[in-house]
């Protein structure tokens, strides 16, 4: 049977409650495209804050905001593994409390990490992984070739590239998480390196490359055409090399590039407001992107704190957001609208007023370029499958795809 590798399904179909600890705002790196404009070494989460937060969440088991079958406890930074001792203590406490309370999340939880991978090999991290192996999702961010990676992902003081320190941990990571995916971020300067970088990551044994362009307004004139050219080269390489059978690259999706119905396709892209984040001060956010260290021009959107709980008025706009209300007319009339993403935090930060209802459209031309290359990819791939009499098999057996959600 012919197969085309899909991206891995998110755990529980992406329907679990997502709860994020911003354990530190420090990181070894100062990536040039990082949206975290307020990183610092001071804001490290105290244990008491973490414990009070966990108690708050678990005390509200029956609250509609927490009435999800499953939960993903997400740890983010900065670099989360800088706080591995705190994380270990948090996870132990969560497990103990879930058991003690006979909470419905016991045995239906994950601990999730997105790490720069630099201290992945260290004993404390490895001990933690061994202890929690069955409940872990860990993604290491490696951006592609050494040149591409080191273009952006540099140490904060020396500005030295971090590639060598990350790539040495990839084999260990893949041994522990063979289906692990990496996240690649594309900014203007990265465009020429897309093809070689994705192929390089495949070569490292990473089968799932989740790649996206930054939402911020960083794009130069002509970037869209360069981007399209790179993606077409990548399409040729993936199809001609047969990589599509065992490797995936999120740039290529059958779902994108279609017009969208204003009523039927009106859901919000993003899960902000359904998620919950806490920082070192015990403040709560609808998503980490609304914490002050993520925002250039706006004040943090704090929805409560661990002592007083969530001010539900402050999440009403998030939970009533829809695509049509926040989109400008050009998006509503766009013939290739599907798959064009947005980040609610970036929307808020870039908006003219204090609102989450103004969609930022800095990626407009990049999305259109992606659609053109995507069409090329699927046309070429289908023709290849037809020539090999494999298209019908694929169509008959392909997985039902769901829309992407942030």
């Amino acid at each position, binding site marked *: 049977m012919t197969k085309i590798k899909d991206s891995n399904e998110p755990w529980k179909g992406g329907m679990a409650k997502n709860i994020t600890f911003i354990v530190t705002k420090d990181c070894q790196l100062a990536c040039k495209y990082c949206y975290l404009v307020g990183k610092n070494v001071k804001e490290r989460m105290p244990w008491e804050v973490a414990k009070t937060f966990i108690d708050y969440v678990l005390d509200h088991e029956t609250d509609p905001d927490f009435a999800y079958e499953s939960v993903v406890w997400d740890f983010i930074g900065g670099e989360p593994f800088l706080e591995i001792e705190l994380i270990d203590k948090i996870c132990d406490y969560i497990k103990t409390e879930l058991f003690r309370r006979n909470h419905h999340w016991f045995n239906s939880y994950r601990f999730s990490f997105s790490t720069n991978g630099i201290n992945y090999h260290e004993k404390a991290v490895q001990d933690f992984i061994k202890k929690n192996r069955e409940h872990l999702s860990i993604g290491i961010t490696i951006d592609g070739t050494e040149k591409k990676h080191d273009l952006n992902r540099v140490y904060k003081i020396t500005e030295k590239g971090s590639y060598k320190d990350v790539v040495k941990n990839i084999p260990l990571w893949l041994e522990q998480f063979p289906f692990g995916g990496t996240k690649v971020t594309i900014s203007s300067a990265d465009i020429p390196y897309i093809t070689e970088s994705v192929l390089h990551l495949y070569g490292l044994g990473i089968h799932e490359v989740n790649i996206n362009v930054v939402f911020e307004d960083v794009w130069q004139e002509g970037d869209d055409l360069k981007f399209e050219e790179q993606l077409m080269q990548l399409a040729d390489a993936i199809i001609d090399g047969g990589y599509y059978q065992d490797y995936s690259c999120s740039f290529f999706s059958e779902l994108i590039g279609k017009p969208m119905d204003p009523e039927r396709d009106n859901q919000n892209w993003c899960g902000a407001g359904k998620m919950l984040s806490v920082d070192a001060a015990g403040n709560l956010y609808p998503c980490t992107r609304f914490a002050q260290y993520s925002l250039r*021009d*706006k*004040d943090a*959107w704090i929805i409560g704190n661990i002592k007083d709980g969530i001010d*539900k*008025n*402050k999440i*009403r*706009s998030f*939970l*009533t*957001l*829809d695509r049509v*209300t926040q989109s400008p007319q050009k998006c509503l009339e766009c013939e290739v609208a599907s798959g064009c993403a947005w980040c609610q935090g970036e929307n808020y930060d870039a*908006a*003219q*007023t*204090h*609102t*989450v*209802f*103004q969609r930022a459209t800095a990626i407009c031309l990049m999305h259109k370029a992606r659609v053109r290359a995507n069409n090329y990819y699927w046309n070429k791939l289908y023709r290849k499958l037809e020539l090999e009499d494999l298209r019908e098999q694929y169509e008959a057996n392909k997985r039902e795809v769901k829309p992407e959600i942030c």
Partner: protein
Amino acid sequence: MLQYLVIILDDTSVAYCHADNPLEERNLMPLETLKKGILFGMKQNLMIQYVFPDYALPEEYASIIESIDNVKIYPIGKKPDTGLNDESEADVEVAMDIPENVDAQNLVLRLSFSEMLKQKDEIVKLFAQGKRINLCITDVEQFADEQIEAYKQVLNEWNTALLDLYKQGQSPQFNLLTDRMMLEKMHNCEAGVSNITLAPNGKFYLCPAFYYDERMQVFNQMNHHQPSSDNSVGDLEKGLDIPNPQLLKLNYAPLCRKCDAYQCRRCLWLNRKLTWDLNTPSHQQCVMAHIERNASRDLLNDIRKVGEFMPEINIKEIDYLDPFDVRKEF
């Protein structure tokens, strides 16, 4: 479409809606600004609504004020003397307590929720005066779910009094209970859409509350971190410049556009204060508006038991008070 220009004549002009006016020092709008404001209103074809302070304005203001048709909003018992006696039917007196006499055809009664409950019987006496009564609750943000029953009860008591008046052939007008019976679509404040406010500094604001906030340096969220940070949406020199104007409109308010609590004020200032988004109402505003809506339905049904009344109006029975709770089916 803009229809009204509200001109705040002085910083101490009377507050007439949800927001209190915290400004205590007099700061009269300069005559030149007033003239330009009137000219702006004339050119834009806007009805002018002057908001007066509790002191008599200098004589030279009278002729300027009366140089165009207008509506006057003034503190109770402080009817402005502008030399003209042809008072507008739309003039509004504003009281913070139950007044003994109401001169104007319209009374805005601004009370806290607890004061409203305390003075509920006194309020009933106003219904029979043949004036339009607008009761404005000044602490909506404090309203708690534990007060729902108390609100239902007081509205029910007022319904009884209003029904008696209808039976006597009168047509009392009380915003919380009789407005919804007459409405077939949303009829809200519409700040920034059908009306705009000119402050003494010559700048435009969505409504007076946004001016008060700016003057008091309250939590500025309209133009965050911008060098010219303020709440204004234009001025007399450059004209109106409302950022994200679409978000002020009903169609851009997901919770409101399908709602049928048509009498709700849909106060943008409260929205911003409580939910931080101008187009998103708070739980408090929704619940109070729906209690009023349901009580209006009861009143309508009771009146119809006596005789035919507004047959084209249909207020259906619903089982929620906050549309947010049923947003998925909404």
